[in-house]
């Protein structure tokens, strides 16, 4: 019981913390990036890594706390606006569709399994993926 209360408090403190971390597959992703490069990737403007490998974007769904933080902090959009944004890009073929997840574990697993994949999460819990410092900082300094 005490453990459960502790975990709940821990989770709530994490979400209130609103920190975001860029994580990537060990293969095909750079060891660090500038924020502008990250933003260009997440906005669908850059679709391939410098080595030519296709960039796979993994995001938390906008109805999750991390998703909401991602929408507001990185995209400066609401969840609905983010959906519409990606719908427009995918519909017009301007960008490959990102993959949205309900849980960060699934997201981390996806990133770990797909070379060239990059994702935004709250805090990595596995070593199967690497944390990509942005402008030399982790988490993102927004």
């Amino acid at each position, binding site marked *: 019981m005490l453990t459960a209360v502790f975990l709940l408090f821990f989770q709530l403190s994490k979400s209130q913390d609103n920190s975001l971390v860029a994580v990537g597959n060990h293969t095909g992703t750079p060891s660090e990036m500038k924020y502008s490069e990250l933003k260009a990737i997440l906005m669908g403007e850059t679709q391939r890594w410098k080595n030519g490998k296709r960039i796979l974007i993994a995001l938390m769904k906008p109805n999750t706390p991390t998703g909401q933080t991602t929408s507001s902090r990185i995209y400066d959009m609401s969840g609905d606006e983010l959906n519409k944004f990606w*719908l427009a890009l995918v519909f017009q*073929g301007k960008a490959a569709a990102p993959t949205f997840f309900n849980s960060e574990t699934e997201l981390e697993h996806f990133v770990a399994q797909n070379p060239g994949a990059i994702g935004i999460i709250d805090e990595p819990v596995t070593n199967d993926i690497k944390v990509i410092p942005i402008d030399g900082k982790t988490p993102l300094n927004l």
Partner: protein
Amino acid sequence: MVFSLKTRIWLTVFSIVIMFTFFTLYYFPAQERQLLLKNYNTELQNLANTVAFGVSIALIEQHFEGVETAMQFVKDDPRLQFVSIVELDTAWSEDRQHYNLEKKVFKTFPETEHPRPDIKSGSGIVIKRGAFASPIMSGDILLAFSTKDINESEAKIRHTSLIVSGIVLLIGILLGLLLARKVSVPVLALRDAARKISEGDLSQKVKITSADEIGQLGKAFNEMVDDLDVARKELHKNNQELSATNARLNNTLSELKSTQVQLIQSEKMASLGELTAGIAHEIQNPLNFVNNFSDVNTELIDEMRIEIEKGNYEEVIAIAGSIRENQDKITHHGKRADGIVKGMLHHSRTSSGQKETTDINALADEYLRLSYHGLRAKDKSFNATLKTEFDKTAGQIKIISQDIGRVFLNLFNNAFYAVMEKKRELENSEMGNLGKYEPTVFVSTKRSDNQVEIRIKDNGRGISEKVLDKIYQPFFTTKPTGQGTGLGLSLSYDIIKAHGGEIKVDTKEGEYAEFIIDLPA
């Protein structure tokens, strides 16, 4: 308008080709186009629905692979004109009291296209809509595809149809030529042969080139010509025989006519013979007067000579007056005898055929007496009452008197014969008693508007029903052989008809017979 067989064949083939061309060039391509359009619409509607479903999933589940896949499928289709997301948005009034639902194009692929949200299918383009709905956004997927492929397919079908029609036309021409050769040529040959046959040339035969109906027709035609030739030869032969028979019949007819003339003359002479006794009686009467008055005059002349010698001149003058009176009577009766003889000669002469004005009453009376006295001369015991009732107004009518006299004589002779026979039958009957029977022959005339009616009636045996319709036939007689030629009534009938008149009979067997003659006045 009459079309030749060849023209009809060509018209038939041409009509078939035209109909086929219509179907291949217009009907079938139109049907094909409709079918293609139907399938095309269904396919596009499915595409629009698929994209709309993908959009719904993307907006609700943030699962964009569906949209990506569907759009990939659409974008790769070369028929695509554009695809748009039409968003249904709520437009509030300024006071926020009312709102309208407005459609606006959210995004379009390719971006160069800017369609109106209410665009409809038109020339060369098909528009399909697939509805989607999500809490974020609702609206339609607007899918616009070109009908170019369908038009090209239709054009291709038409092109193929045109080629097929050309081939069919070529086949039609060949078929027409074949039919013309197989049907028209033999039929025309038959026609030409038939024409020559109708002109009398039976040597015509048609060449048989096939075993079908046309060939059978030609064979039948040739057989018919052969039969016709045989029939014509037989006909010619029969005709010759008929001509010979006809010549013989003409000879026979001439002989018959000659015989008829002789018979008529014989009948005339027979009636003349019957007249002779009557005429003799008629002449005897005035001759008696002449002889008697001559004898009286001879005696008176002797007396007058004696009185002259005596000088008794008054008596001489009286005797001379008597002689004069007797001489007048002699002259009168002499002229009467002369008239009778002239009448007999008149009767025996062949008819002149010229009508002359004749006193019909006098003619009837003369022949009545001649007939009666003729019979009396043969049979002194015969007596009959002669009754006449002549209409004085009957007067003079234009007739051939010899011919009408002959009619009267025949009818009077028959009448007297009938009463004589009846009297004889009554005398020879078991009763042997004449009773009150008095043989009577009655003749009357009567004038009406334009004709004169003569009735000759006797109270003799009458005419039986069985023979009534035969009495005018030549050579028909009820008299014993040698007593009648059977030509009397026949000639009488012809004479009355030749005068434009009519003869009828009214009779009751055993009681009377009455002949009624109507002559134009």
